[in-house]
């Protein structure tokens, strides 16, 4: 079968998918969890608990403040011992609810059975309401509140739901494992979203380096009308929303527009699975799959199912017995992940992986002169010219900067990755974006 891909730029990345054969393992319960009340794009949620409160797994901790916000639930049972501003993985102070774990008692409304519930009984409105109440956000990393993407705004039309199972990031296998182990639940989740959106066309996009997920998904989708599998070329950044839509539908999201403007909605497989659990099992989003991995700093890399708020160190200890080997801890993958200031930062709804690098791998090579090889521009999936952006920033040439479409940069990092002179081109692109935003104000 023909492999789908996007036409512009992109690279074939050495993907380091060393954990793709590792079944999802329960991470267990830490002694204390730190649950940030803002794990999404938008307004911080309003805290509903106070110090001393007893909570259960699934208890609402914070309420969405407005449409662009999300509910946050407790991931453990125990006592709220502190509500404080604590440094998160991004090195920002973030308000967190700190809970001392006692036992593992679930809210009684949560269906804890393993039985797959196929029949979708809720109406479209009820589905969206359930997604909202379950605190679901885009788990691929964007953190955009999902209920917004499950409702079609006035005047817009949607005809395609793309379930993003590409996971093109280096090292991460969380989505891969979820597709292999929970294929049917994801397909039902896609059916639920189809119903919410009032469409009949969900496409599960998987890239060719996940043969097992492709096989299982193809087998299961045969039983479900309106859900199909498409195999994409294993190219980075195939999983980026605009590149994926282009590959699957041939449509190009215009500059400054959203997928919905080309009648598409893209949801990560993890998000779709969370939707299944929310709608069919009444289970709020309080845990997720996290790949904890590394070539040289993780002896026993794993895919974990971990509670939100678990300190990274709790997971790291289970894959690494020599903490002195760890030079860098990255929340996310090797290309787009955020390098964390300390190992105790908690995992959130958006943490798809924790990547450990040893000291040598963590050392960035020195920058040398640009040789004008144009690899950055040739491989930019958005057709931008990172070398020109870097020059404009260095020269403080704002007039030139405005011509360079920086706001279209998807921050995939391909330019920095590919640069033989090791110029941090993505940093220049981010600086350029900040500069443009500053001028707009």
């Amino acid at each position, binding site marked *: 079968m023909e492999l789908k891909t996007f036409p512009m730029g992109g690279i074939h990345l050495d993907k380091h998918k060393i954990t793709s054969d590792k079944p999802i393992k329960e991470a267990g319960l830490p002694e204390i969890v730190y649950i940030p009340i803002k794990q999404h794009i938008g307004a911080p949620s309003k805290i509903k608990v106070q110090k001393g409160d007893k909570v259960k797994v699934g208890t609402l901790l914070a309420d969405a403040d407005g449409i662009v916000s999300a509910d946050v639930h407790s991931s453990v049972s125990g006592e709220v011992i502190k509500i404080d501003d604590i440094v998160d993985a991004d090195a920002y102070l973030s308000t967190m609810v700190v809970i001392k774990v006692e036992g593992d008692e679930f809210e009684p409304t949560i269906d804890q059975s393993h039985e797959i519930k196929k029949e979708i009984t809720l109406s479209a409105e009820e589905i969206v309401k359930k997604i909202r109440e379950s605190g679901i956000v885009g788990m691929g990393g964007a953190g955009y509140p999902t209920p917004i993407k499950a409702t079609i705004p006035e005047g817009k039309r949607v005809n395609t739901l793309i379930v993003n199972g590409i996971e093109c990031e280096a090292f991460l296998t969380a989505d891969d494992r979820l597709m292999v182990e929970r294929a049917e639940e994801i397909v039902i989740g896609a059916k639920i979203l189809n119903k919410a959106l009032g469409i009949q066309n969900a496409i599960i996009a998987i890239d060719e380096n996940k043969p097992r997920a492709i096989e299982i998904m193809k087998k299961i989708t045969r039983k479900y009308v309106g859900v199909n599998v498409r195999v994409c070329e294993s190219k980075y950044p195939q999983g980026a929303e605009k590149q994926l839509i282009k590959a699957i539908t041939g449509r190009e999201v215009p500059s400054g*527009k959203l997928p919905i403007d080309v009648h598409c909605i893209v949801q990560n497989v993890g998000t779709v699975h969370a939707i299944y659990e929310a709608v069919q099992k009444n289970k709020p989003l309080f845990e997720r799959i996290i790949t904890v991995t590394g070539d040289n700093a993780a002896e026993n890399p794993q895919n974990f199912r971990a509670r939100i708020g678990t300190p990274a160190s709790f997971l790291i200890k289970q894959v690494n017995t020599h903490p002195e080997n760890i030079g860098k801890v990255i929340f996310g993958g090797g290309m787009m992940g955020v390098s964390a200031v300390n190992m105790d930062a908690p995992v959130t709804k958006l943490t798809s992986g924790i990547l450990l690098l040893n000291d040598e791998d963590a050392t960035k090579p020195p920058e040398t002169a640009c*040789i004008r090889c144009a690899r950055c521009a040739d491989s930019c999936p958005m057709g931008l010219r990172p070398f020109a952006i870097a020059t404009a920033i260095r020269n403080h040439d704002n007039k030139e900067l405005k011509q360079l479409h920086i706001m279209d940069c998807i921050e995939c990092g391909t330019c920095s990755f590919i640069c033989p002179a*090791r110029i941090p081109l993505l940093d220049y692109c981010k600086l350029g974006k900040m500069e443009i935003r500053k001028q707009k104000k």
Partner: protein
Amino acid sequence: MLKLSTAPHLNTPTTTKGIMLDVIIALMPALIVGLLVFGMGALQVVITSVAGCVLFEYIICRYFLKSNPTTGDLSAIVTGLLLAFNLPSGFPISLTLIGCFVAIVIAKMAFGGIGKNIFNPALVGRVFLFISFPVQMTTWPKPQAFNFMNTDMETGATTLGILKHLKTNDFAQIPELPSYLNMFIGNIGGCIGEVSALAILLGFVYMLYRRIISWHIPVYYVATFMLLCSIHWLLTGEIRHEPLIHLLSGGLMLGAVFMATDYTTSPMSKNGRIAYAIGCGILTYVIRFYGIYPEGVSFAILIMNAFVPLIDSTFIPRVFGTRRK
């Protein structure tokens, strides 16, 4: 203490040095043929040129810029090899060093070093020598295939030199014209690195395989030249305009594959590269057919080098989600 940095946290293994090493590897077939065809005279030029270029760059960095020498990136070796490839075998050591000085000190380092030069350093060096020392630059030892130790050099004109001053249109009357096979494998007179089309093609294939260059510049360059040359030949019917001879002898292949594709002095977008290559092809044709020189490749590429900033600001790739302006 954890290290902190911005994303991405991974890098391609390809570095500037690695790219230069690949170019050097790609130049090896042409070097080997040059040495086999011209013997010790060629070896002397190559060693002098490479050593001279590296030394000048080292001296400039170390003693004038007081910075860490950039010779480790191997680009000076590439320049040294390419300069030697563009000189006749047996070219005097002193003059070769002058060429190195012009290439590295004036054309490269004075502009800011690697990546900053406007003109291809090796070509600047060659053209400087060509204009300043025309006699030595056009003293072509005859090929002496596989007779490596022969130091008794006979000299003769290059194929294109013969064609330029051709008075007859009868093949039989020009016995000194080499066969196509000899032109293809490189058993002809000319600059050290330009004689073998086969060796240059091998280098081209290697660079394509290693994704060092794309095919656009060499193919568009040669195709443009061959098209114009063929039209001219068909219209005039003169042997001296025979396109295959023009392709297989002279500096066209070397220039198209190794000189016009220099990253620093060629455009940075695909369409820009095509426009630049077509420009090179047209200029090479104009100089070879209407100019006083039998060769036109060096001048054509240098002239197009000057147009690169203009081409870069004209041929801007389409941004995803926008219409082409």
